[in-house]
């Protein structure tokens, strides 16, 4: 019944319209551009949770020396056995995470008692921090504990490592921790 009423109405339309023919060019439209037809694809792993979805990062340029890459899109990697191309809302918006304007781009220092950040060069920052590490280590170093046992630790320093650092970085960090003798160390895994 529903159908017949509709057909009736259609028939009326046809009957009511006055035919002037129609323009064939209208049968094809070019409306929307496929935005990643000219991008460079890089395979990566989502930095958020531990499912480790495969992502493809689409950047401008073809990695030539004169091209500055910037991210235009991030999409799931359909080959990845776990994620099979899908992503959660966080993974899909990784472009925002890479490009957002609150990213830090300059080393900064806040001097004791100050209420603001000052710019600092990398060289100065590294030199100052290295000096802090050495001063603190030399001052706090416990070569032997109360029982006279060799412990070679530096309780004047604490280090916390992240959860989105690579394994390789973690290993380097552990080496540094070992060199500096830091016993106070922990990671996201604890909390």
């Amino acid at each position, binding site marked *: 019944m*529903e*159908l017949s009423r*509709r057909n009736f*109405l*259609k028939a*009326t*339309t*046809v*009957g*009511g*319209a*006055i*035919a*002037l*023919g*129609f323009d064939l060019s*209208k*049968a*094809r*439209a*070019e*409306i*929307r*551009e*496929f*935005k990643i*037809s*000219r991008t460079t694809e890089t395979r990566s792993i989502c930095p958020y949770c531990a499912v480790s979805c495969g992502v493809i990062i689409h950047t401008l340029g073809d990695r030539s020396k004169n091209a500055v890459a910037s991210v235009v*899109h*991030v*999409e*799931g990697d*359909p080959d990845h056995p776990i*994620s099979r*191309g*899908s*992503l*959660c*809302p*966080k*993974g*899909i*918006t990784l*472009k925002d995470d890479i490009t957002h304007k609150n990213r830090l781009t300059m080393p900064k220092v806040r001097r004791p008692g100050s209420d603001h950040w000052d710019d600092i060069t990398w060289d100065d920052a590294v030199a100052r921090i290295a000096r802090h590490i050495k001063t603190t280590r030399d001052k706090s170093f416990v070569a032997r504990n109360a029982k006279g046992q060799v412990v070679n630790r530096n309780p004047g320093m604490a280090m916390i490592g992240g959860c989105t650092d690579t394994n390789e970085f973690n290993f380097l960090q552990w080496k540094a921790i070992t060199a500096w003798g830091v016993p106070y160390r922990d990671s996201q895994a604890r909390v």
Partner: protein
Amino acid sequence: MTVQALEIKRSSAAMWGTKTGLREKPVVSKYIDTTTCIGCKACEAACQEWNDLKTVATHQEGSYQTLPHLDADFWNLIRFNEREVDGGLMWLMRKDQCMHCAEPGCLEACPAPGAIVQYANGIVDVDPSKCIGCGYCSTGCPFDVPKFHKTTGKMAKCTLCVDRVEVGLEPACIKACPTGCLQFGSKEQMVAMGNARVSQLKGAGFQDAMLYDPQGVGGTSVVTVLGHGHPEWYDLPRDPHVPLLVRAWKSILRPLGVLAAFAAVIGVFGHYATYGPKEPPEGDGVGEGRTK
């Protein structure tokens, strides 16, 4: 790669009905299984990112739902509904977006030629270069989908990622879906998948599970598996149609009006031929030269 040219089978405000298409192509469809949707909003995010839509200023108002309804800059919305039946709590989530009706009310209502088109694969799209922003489409839509965009002055809605589909990809929302509650394929396949899922659900205790593919709009290119046979629980109209008044207007009133106008013009010619002008009789004593 050049921009793809898309085959159109229907266009708004075309002269001869709305049909324009020459070729028949398989109709594509989205599949939404609300019973496996976790409301993660991956589809929302994927839609925003792929279509580079502006972020809408939202506020926490006591709901997981991003917005109360779709927006010109938000084409894909998960609707969250809590419902308690017989002491059992349900948290129903449904992906809301353009349904891409086989007989689109928006297209029917649209007065601007070519502003709303239905491609040969069934996708209903707004061509911003032709849209005049009159909003008739939103009047014609039984699902309250097309929205007016304040900055562009055009109507905007889900395109079913026609740019992706035309190069052989699935829509962004579908690809993103973590649980696979969204699928993409030919309408035929999606309906078959939906029917299979519905019978599986019926076996698993969802006696009134149903496949939502409303025939009142000729079926849609979004088929939705509902765990409970109450579309309104999911903010869906039970039996949507292109509004009768919109049809009556386009299909009856408008042609009649045109006829009436032409009839009036023809009528006055006929009248003139029959009765001639009404002029003062010759030699009217008070007559003065009309040449004055």
